[in-house]
């Protein structure tokens, strides 16, 4: 079978092997230089494996033990053992524990306390950590995390929504902070966050839907901003937002599926940002999650709001709460 033939379909077995092998590359400097991302890598890999019907490829016991070892006394999680707590990694940790149905392994009250401490009382925004960087990504992290823990009561939700709405732009999109350019990654975060707290009525769904489907280029791939290069991870950021807004069908599915499949590494497994580049676990998850949203056969359905397998979101009773 030649390369192009192989890339007509999703190389499930190769991707499973690729993800499994990530933790054994400890001879590479690269592995150590990305140490601060280790916990994210586990979330990306584990979620991808579950969507591929292969969650057992990583041992639950090891995964849970590792996640627990990243928690700090203040309740937050660092990107790896010994790394400072951060809201982003705290969400990844909670997502992993929810997938593994292992929240009882950690002190949930402490996590809630940590997340709540990241909210700025005046603006309603969230900082990523005690150092004060503000970003709508962190609003999503906080709302998603507390929603998964069923503890949204711990923060000021109306204020959080108020801040997100300040970041809404003239083109219907959202940026990192008030006035910042619309960006597909931030749009996923803002639309996802608004969905979690039942505030989608605040989105101009037609205007934003147009902006999102306008991201599709002739080769089927999606970019994250006008005049930028297409990238597999945007097949997730753009698609999930469209899906939450009930407008997934506005893009051309066949062309996008083709684009994602061609970005697969047909020898080593994994998916790259675009055809011809090196595969990584981040784009592997978002490629697979995108395909799942597009209804690609034999993948478990993914939840567009939480970026978790749908059966997980259903198990904890949070599925289908959002409506435009």
């Amino acid at each position, binding site marked *: 079978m030649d390369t192009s033939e192989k890339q007509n379909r999703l190389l499930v077995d190769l991707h499973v092997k690729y993800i499994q092998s990530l933790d054994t590359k400890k001879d590479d400097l690269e592995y150590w230089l990305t140490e601060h991302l280790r916990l994210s890598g586990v979330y990306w890999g584990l979620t991808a494996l579950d969507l591929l019907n292969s969650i057992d490829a990583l041992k639950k016991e090891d995964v849970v*033990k590792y996640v627990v070892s990243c928690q700090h006394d203040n309740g937050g999680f660092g990107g790896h053992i*010994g790394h400072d707590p951060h809201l982003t990694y705290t969400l990844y940790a909670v997502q992993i524990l929810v997938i593994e149905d292992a929240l009882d392994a950690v002190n949930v009250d402490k996590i809630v306390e940590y997340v709540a401490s990241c909210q700025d009382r005046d603006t309603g925004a969230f900082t990523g950590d005690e150092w004060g960087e503000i970003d709508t990504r962190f609003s999503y992290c906080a709302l998603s995390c507390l929603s998964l823990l069923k503890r949204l009561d711990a923060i000021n939700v109306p204020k959080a929504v108020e801040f997100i709405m300040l970041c809404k732009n*003239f083109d219907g999109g959202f940026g990192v902070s008030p006035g910042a350019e619309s960006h597909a990654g931030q749009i996923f975060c803002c639309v996802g966050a608004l969905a979690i707290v039942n505030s989608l009525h605040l989105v101009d769904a037609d205007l934003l839907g147009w902006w999102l489907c306008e991201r599709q280029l002739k080769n089927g791939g999606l970019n994250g901003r006008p005049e930028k290069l297409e990238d597999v991870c945007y097949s997730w950021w753009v698609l999930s937002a469209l899906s939450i807004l009930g407008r997934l069908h506005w893009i051309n599915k066949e062309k996008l599926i083709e684009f994602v499949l061609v970005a697969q590494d047909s020898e080593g497994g994994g998916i790259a940002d675009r055809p011809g580049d090196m595969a990584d676990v981040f784009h592997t998850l978002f490629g697979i999650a995108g395909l799942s949203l597009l209804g690609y056969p034999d993948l478990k359905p993914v939840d567009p709001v939480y970026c978790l397998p749908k059966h997980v979101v259903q198990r904890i009773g949070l599925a289908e709460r959002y409506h435009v």
Partner: protein
Amino acid sequence: MALEAEVWSDIKPIPLDDGPDPLAPIAYDAEYSEAMGYFRAISQRDERSERALKLTERIVEYNPAHYTIWHYRQQILFSLNKNLNEELDFVKEQIESNPKNYQLWHHRQVLVEKLMDASCELPFINEILNDDAKNYHAWTYRQWIIRTFNLWENELDFVNKLLDKDVRNNSAWNQRYFTLFFNPTKPTEEFLTQEIEYVIEKIKMAPNNISPWNYIKGIIAKSNKDIGILEELCKEIEKQDIISPHAIGCLVDIYESRARKGSATDKEEGIRICTLLAEKHDAIRKKYWEYRKVILTSL
């Protein structure tokens, strides 16, 4: 980058605890490993010293995204009352080689916030935008600087220059909107009329460029003007035999707004061009144009 032995003779490096089940043997870069061993040892006792500062410098040069090291470095800098202008030079070099790193930009913001002096910032950001005029971090930081230090005065000139260079730079169009509407001094009615003229000229230069189309519609909505003022532009582009889905799409907006006021001919015409877009000029977004057609039909 081997560390000088005598400076570190009192410290016993702490080896990495790589999780509950470390897969030995570990053979990664010896120098980075050595530096991290010392870092774990001194951060555990919260040592804030010259040698600790030097050590963080070496580690971030290896790995600028290591956010824990940056936090530690900030604490040392402030505790030792270091000259933060020197640190600005250091972080400048770092950003030049890693312009898309969150930690570096945030570190710079923390320093400038502490110094409350932004005199070097716009020239520095200009330099970065000169290499990549769409760097999201640089633009976000620029907006923070402009807002915090009230540097609105020359921003429109700056945006003009960028758009002269590349009319397709969406970041510059966004900055234009920011400059007009986030400025505490709001634009006058007269200014907005001129602004629309300016954008129309830019659209004529590249009718398939979505950024000014989004921008002009944003301004029209914001200032409660009638979208019909763009009809002439759309027709002119059509006459030149340029196929611009954006121009045709804008006509759909115009006809729809008139159909809403009861015009049957505009409704007909809107439906006709939606079909044209769905079948021919923007077929990849067929479903979107069909949706617009359904809306028009229901009016």
